[in-house]
């Protein structure tokens, strides 16, 4: 039994509750916004935020292995930055 790793399952619900508006926000932002470069950067950065939440909370890395969390997120940060640079006009 290892309840110290997770305060409560409410945390998970809150994380899911934040992930959904971020997803719908990406869609609405991409549909409404005309500036291609801004859309490219914002939708990919929103994806990065969602990845952080999944790694940290759903995969429990924040409490279980912060070193792996930082390393893994660092990788995604580099990848998403490269994608944004490649997609810039």
């Amino acid at each position, binding site marked *: 039994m290892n309840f110290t790793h997770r305060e409560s399952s409410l945390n998970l619900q809150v994380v899911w509750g934040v992930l*959904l508006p971020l997803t719908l926000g990406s869609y609405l932002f991409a549909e409404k916004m005309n500036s291609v470069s801004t859309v490219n950067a914002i939708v990919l950065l929103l994806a990065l935020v969602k990845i952080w939440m999944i790694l940290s909370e759903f995969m429990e890395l924040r409490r279980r292995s912060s070193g792996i969390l930082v390393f893994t997120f660092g990788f995604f940060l580099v990848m998403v930055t490269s*994608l944004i640079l490649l997609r810039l006009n």
Partner: protein
Amino acid sequence: MLNELDQKKLFHPTNSENQRQLYPFLENLPGGGLIWIVFWLEILTFALFFLVFAWIGRTDRTVFIEGQKLLHPLLATLNTVVLLTGSWWVARAVFLARSPEKISAWLYATGLSGFLFILIKSWEYTQIFKQGISLSSSIFWFFYLFLTLLHLAHVALGGVIFIWLGWKSSSERLQTETLEAAAIYWHMVDIIWLILFPLIYFTR
């Protein structure tokens, strides 16, 4: 004085104990070491494909923009919600598995979310194929179909794994490491989609 068990542990440490002594940062890693090797192999492979897709998109802009006009971003958004919900359910199952509560319903729900994703994606493919599009139509469609079908195969495997785990957990208690490893796989599939989704549907 050490008892017999302690002596065995001291002189013949198990594989996981060896692993922990050699790599202390792996000590608390959810799901064990093997699933993390799978995680990194998959992520690195998809990352390479994403970078190639973005690179080619720079050179063949017109083909990519024309292709994107035929996609269904709203369906893709709905599918993202489905995958994220599945991720929440499996995270909840992992949490509840530490108490005596039954988790089979959460595991079945996760598996079914995978099949719902496949159903929505199939509808989108049908709309695309109706317009005579195939892998050889253009470089955009090659990458779109290749990447999304590769991802879909991972979702299908995850769906089968979770239906099986749901069935298994209704009659016996699952090992923590097995459940955590399956959860890591599902979150990996989710993360790959979280990049694929904006890259294909929204970035231009």
